[in-house]
């Protein structure tokens, strides 16, 4: 159910990697537009190559949009939950501090507000949000 009249709670799923597919740009632009209309962007779930959006080591050229920072801004300004599929992330070298320790790795590449999550949380997002929109590669 919508929290206010006509105002909806959205979850986005991002399956495409940043800087290689349009999915991340589309998802960010869509997220900004829904917020501008008074809806809430409550959750973004990063899956498949979309997990590369969560790398805290991303260092794009300064004259290009910093997509990772754009997600962090959303989390800070809107309280958006940034969930990263743990199975997809570990395979691609995206580990938070705890997972890095657990696997004996010398560094970690994921930090809050990005949170490693299970696929069950994607299913839950589909149930608990008013709308779920997938941005695919």
């Amino acid at each position, binding site marked *: 159910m919508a929290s206010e009249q006509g105002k909806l709670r959205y979850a986005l799923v991002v*399956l495409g990697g940043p800087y290689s597919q*349009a999915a991340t740009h589309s998802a960010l632009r869509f997220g900004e537009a829904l917020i501008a209309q008074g809806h809430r962007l409550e959750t973004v779930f990063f899956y498949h190559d979309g997990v590369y959006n969560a790398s805290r080591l991303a260092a794009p050229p300064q004259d290009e949009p910093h997509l990772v920072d754009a997600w962090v801004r959303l989390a800070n300004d809107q309280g958006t939950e940034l969930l990263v599929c743990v199975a997809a992330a570990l395979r691609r070298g995206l580990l938070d501090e705890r997972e890095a320790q657990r696997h004996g790795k010398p560094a970690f590449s994921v930090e809050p507000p990005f949170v490693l999550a299970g696929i069950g949380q994607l299913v839950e997002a589909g149930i608990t949000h008013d709308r779920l929109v997938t941005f695919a590669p």
Partner: protein
Amino acid sequence: MLLHLLNRSPASSRLIQDVLRAMGPEDRLLLIESGVYGAVPPQSAGFETLKGRCYALQEDLTSRGLAERQADWIIPVDMAGFVALTAETQRTVSWY
């Protein structure tokens, strides 16, 4: 009523056949990203059965140099219009 999102050009994918088969009589289709190539004639002919419920994302048309080149029956929408379509329909299905 569902909103279908298609991000593949008909020139590079036969996905359009699956989308058309899967769509219900009231469902809407929004062409995004490279899907907007399908909005331009002669490719647009493939979507003619969807007159009145076929949309294309304006900024993706523009970024590909296709602004104003879409078929006259395809409805251009901006990002706000995209959000409105997702709000008006019960669910969104992404094809890729």
